[in-house]
């Protein structure tokens, strides 16, 4: 038993070493290779999620809300939404994009800026929702990358 585990450790060492070499070489050779040290700053993560979309900074979103020129769509799960959300926001998850298209259209007709958000910079749900709505022909919805966490960190109002 002990001998078997000792044998396993030796085998495993060489197998991992082999995998590391293959992985590194393969990554350098392939076109889809990624940098060995990545940029995981909030801006870079935002670009990953919403690089192809229009984003709005949380402070600008708050200004618009203060002037009653913004409507918010909360893309988080219903449970999170029920626990608190930006005043007046409507809860639409990415999966509901198609069935609630009518509601989104009505919101757009108010002429206000539509802003989607989810948890925080790392959350992909808002961008996912806006992308799906875009595929259904609805444009002009902005993403607020800072999300619910960024909103609360600044002490902005919620309900």
């Amino acid at each position, binding site marked *: *038993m002990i*001998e*078997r*585990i000792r*044998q*396993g*450790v*030796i*085998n*495993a*060492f*060489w*197998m*991992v070493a*082999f*995998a*590391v070499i*293959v*992985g*590194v070489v*393969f*990554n350098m050779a392939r076109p*889809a*290779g*990624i*940098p*060995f*040290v*990545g940029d*995981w700053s909030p801006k870079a*993560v935002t670009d*990953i*999620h919403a690089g192809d979309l229009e984003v709005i900074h949380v402070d600008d979103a708050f200004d618009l809300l203060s002037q009653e020129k913004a409507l918010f769509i909360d893309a988080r*799960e219903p449970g*999170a939404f029920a626990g608190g959300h930006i005043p007046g926001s409507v809860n639409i998850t*990415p999966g509901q994009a198609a069935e609630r298209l009518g509601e989104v259209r009505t919101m757009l007709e108010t002429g206000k800026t539509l802003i989607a958000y989810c*948890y925080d910079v*790392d*959350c*992909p*749900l808002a961008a*996912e929702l806006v992308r799906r709505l875009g595929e259904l022909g609805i444009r002009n919805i902005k993403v607020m990358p800072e999300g619910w966490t960024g909103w609360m960190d600044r002490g902005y109002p919620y309900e």
Partner: protein
Amino acid sequence: MNEQKHAVNEFLDSKGFQSIVAFVRVALGIMFVYAGLTKIVAPAGFALAVYNYHILPASLVNVTAIVLPWVEVVAGTCLVLGLWIPGGALIVSGLLFVFTVALGFNLSRGLDIACGCFSSSPTAEKITWWYLLRDGSLLVAALGVLVYDRGLFALQKKVFGSPAGPE
């Protein structure tokens, strides 16, 4: 007492029990090869999944995403073929242990993230307690292979003429 021990050993070495162990070994291996390949196909997506776990420092995220899938594929292939079985089983056990701890840690702090288990997509497969149970069961299976596999249906002897590990 000795008689009982003898009976247990006889059972552990029996063709029936060893067939089950070999089946578990091959199934685990296939699972790991598949899991590794889905990540190798989309390295940027898997890097994001690793980042989202918020366990590793940002500087180690990409290296992990580059190397980890290959460790899975190499260890999985060895289990399927029956080469260096103790090594493959040890790696798979170690990975499953790390995955289980990482999952449990993030579930307990309520992080809503993608599993990154069999896919690199950030929106599919949210982590749940079910995944923790799954990883825990697989860990038990992998430890079973590590301890009990005697190399039935394994290539090791045929290729190298020596057993995969001490018999």
